[in-house]
């Protein structure tokens, strides 16, 4: 049982489907997002990530199913507790960054004039706060949208591709910011193509493909359907024979200087492997229990 299992559910999605004429954008998707989690929603282009996020923000209407925020009936007051960046930064082009945030503040009721200054500073836009939104670069627009989402410390942050348009420094800053917010107890729902980013910051993931939810759970649960042990010795072919003799493995993959041995989930015993190899006269120079990368898992699940 994960540390989040007993926690309050922030968002509950039940059997949501969305069709566009003959295209099924989402097919019977159900998810629960625990409070305090950093929940990554992954999937290739067209998998339904943004459609799902749009539905839970009441931008799109689902054909079937329902959702509830904070365990309450769905209405606009729940959305005021959520800071969201969906697809593109949407602001009034003729207004300055600061004046746009005043509108966000007035609609959401989150924050005050001081908070607006603070978020502008947090996203490095203080110097350009009086400039019109239309004069901002793509990265600045994205940062303003993140600032708007952060305004007034919402209980939940929903970020759809938050690093779009940002340079490497900006991406690193957003990652640090999300990690900081997660430590402060914010619930963060995030979609991104950058699997490495997601793996670094998420506690939970859900993987979508063509509108179908393939898997969801804590990162450890999702990645832990088999154990991978990296192993190496002076003579790799002898080592391979030894592992074959030992048995109980799923597959052995030969890498340039090591073997990658896949075991059924929870069955890899490094001590036993070491002992067995030693008893066969093989001295190991590498023995490492390696978690499968999210990227590997993602491609396994999403490749046809």
């Amino acid at each position: 049982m994960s540390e989040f299992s007993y926690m309050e559910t922030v968002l509950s999605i039940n059997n949501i489907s969305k069709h566009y004429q003959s295209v099924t954008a989402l097919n019977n998707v159900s998810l629960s997002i625990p409070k305090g989690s950093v929940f990554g929603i992954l999937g290739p282009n067209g998998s339904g990530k943004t459609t799902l996020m749009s539905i839970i923000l009441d931008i799109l209407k689902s054909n079937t199913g329902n959702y509830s925020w904070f365990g309450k009936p769905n209405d606009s007051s729940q959305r005021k507790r959520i800071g969201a960046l969906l697809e593109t930064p949407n602001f009034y082009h003729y207004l300055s960054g600061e004046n746009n945030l005043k509108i966000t503040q007035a609609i959401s009721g989150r924050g005050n004039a001081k908070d607006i200054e603070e978020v502008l500073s947090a996203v490095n836009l203080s110097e350009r706060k009086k400039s019109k939104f239309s004069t901002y670069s793509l990265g600045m627009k994205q940062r303003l949208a993140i600032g708007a989402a952060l305004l007034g410390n919402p209980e939940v942050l929903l970020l759809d591709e938050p690093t779009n348009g940002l340079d490497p420094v900006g991406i690193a800053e957003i990652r640090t910011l999300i990690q900081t917010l997660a430590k402060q107890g914010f619930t963060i729902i995030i979609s991104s193509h950058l699997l490495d980013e997601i793996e670094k910051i998420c506690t939970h993931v859900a993987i979508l493909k063509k509108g179908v939810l393939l898997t969801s759970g804590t990162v450890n649960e999702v990645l832990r359907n088999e154990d991978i042990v990296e192993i190496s010795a002076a003579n790799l072919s002898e080592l391979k024979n030894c592992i074959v003799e030992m048995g109980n493995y799923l597959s052995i993959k030969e890498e340039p200087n090591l073997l990658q041995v896949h075991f059924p989930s929870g069955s890899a015993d490094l001590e036993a492997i070491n002992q067995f190899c030693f008893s066969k006269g093989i001295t190991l120079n590498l023995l490492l229990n390696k978690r499968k990368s999210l990227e590997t898992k993602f491609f396994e699940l999403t490749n046809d």
Partner: protein
Amino acid sequence: MLLLLKIEWLKIKRYRAFWWMLAIILLSYPGINTGFYFIYKNITKGKDMANQLAKTFLGNPFSFPETWHTTAYFSSHFIFLPAILVIMLVTNEYSFKTNRQNIIDGWSRTEFISSKLIDVIIVSFIVTLVEIGVAIGFGFNTDAENWNKCLEQLYYIPLFYFQTFAQLSIAFILGYFIKKAFMALGIFLFYYLIVENILVGYLTVKNIPIARFLPFEVSDKILVSPAFVGNFGADAKTKYEAALQIVPEQILFTLIMTTLIWGVCYKVHQKRDIL
């Protein structure tokens, strides 16, 4: 409602195009009426019999209390100017995708449409204020002796407001469904200036009595042509009185049409995907 008003003010107050358009309206309405006033002056300024007859027949339609009616009638023909404002305010939300962001930030779908209803109410109110200023200006400047009658026929002010609101609601629904400013404005102008005039003419000639239910004609008939405008025939008085007689019905039909417009917008916005 006050919060919605405050938020719409935040959107508008630094929107230069809005203020430029408003300045154009501020200049146009007195300009339009001044044009018609000079036509009137030209007809009545001569000393010969025809001019004096015209003066006796027309009176001074720009003095109190007729100025309320006359200026309201002429001003109402230029509804396409505030219509540009309304169309801009609704289509901007689509071009900036702020129609989505407002919902994401916490507005309900009903609040979004209500905010646009407030825009139309405000624009109609501003236009009516301009019209009141124009009427007072002409009343005092063309015949100051009649100022004691300035409180007569004041009902033309709410009638003008209602007609403006009804016709701007048509501009709104076009902007709401078409989403593109130029296309919505083009269709508005094409229908308002050409299509409906042809339809009214055709239906009148063919004696098919449904012209008064057409979208603009229904509210146009709230402000009947002043007695001196184009009614010089033998049946002028009868026609004028007939036009006056149907005003209450036209108010009711306009109310129904306007309620339908907003009802459709509220209903559709509840159900549709916000793209």
